[in-house]
């Protein structure tokens, strides 16, 4: 019995030592599998309950400070299928992009490796008018910036 336990331990250690060979640096899909399923209130895009829950799950707090970084998104998006969103930070450890317009809240989570400059842009889908929220972990402090985007033609339809 003792011997078995010992062998089991060895196998565990071997698996552990193999882990860092993983292809991806940080996989928030695997690390936080449930955060991607947190739902928005589909009846009210001003209700940020789901967004706040997701922020808490990603950053450990649902009370981020109002941010001092730039978030760019259109005031009015004529096509909700392609909404350009960009943000500019000098540095950060982790950044998350969320919105309140789609069935689920989270759009993307970035791990910011050493040497990376979190001056990023993406194009996202928005089903209807709602808020775009960017949250960043800068030196352990959590900052949030949000912007209302009016969508005139939704982007999650057929």
């Amino acid at each position, binding site marked *: 019995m003792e011997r078995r336990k010992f062998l089991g331990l060895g196998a565990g250690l071997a698996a552990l030592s193999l882990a860092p060979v993983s*292809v*991806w*640096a*940080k*996989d*928030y*899909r695997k690390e936080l599998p449930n955060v*991607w399923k947190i739902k928005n209130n589909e009846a009210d895009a001003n209700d940020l309950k789901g967004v706040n829950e997701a922020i808490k799950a990603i950053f450990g707090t649902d009370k981020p400070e109002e941010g001092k970084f730039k978030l760019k998104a259109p005031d009015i998006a004529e096509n909700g*299928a*392609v*909404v350009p969103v*960009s943000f500019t930070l000098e540095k950060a450890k982790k950044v998350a992009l969320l*919105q309140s317009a*789609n*069935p*689920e809240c*989270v*759009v*993307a*989570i*970035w*791990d*910011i*490796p050493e*040497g*990376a*400059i979190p*001056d*990023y*842009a*993406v*194009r*996202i*889908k*928005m*089903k209807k008018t709602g808020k775009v929220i960017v949250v960043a972990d800068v030196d352990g402090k959590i900052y949030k910036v949000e912007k209302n985007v009016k969508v005139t033609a939704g*982007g*999650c*339809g*057929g």
Partner: protein
Amino acid sequence: MRVKAKAKDGVVSVMAVMKHPMLSYDMAKKQGKEANFIIKITGKVDGKVVYDASTSQFLSKNPFIKFKFKGEAGKELELSWADLKGNTKSKKVKIK
């Protein structure tokens, strides 16, 4: 996948377009298909990660991204993505 990487004053700016339908659960249901979208985008130079995004169904169709990192011209940037169904694609470009 189209990738452009340009260096200026020690900062590399990258623009990339990935070809992918990014079928969200809602859209897939309507079209009678299975949802599939890119869930991971990684950029590497000399084996070192310079960009690391975990993504969802809400990136636009044929996702467009822009990012920056400290680096120089002449090196090779490798950008890869993986989707929900396990398909992967990667492309190497020289930083100009």
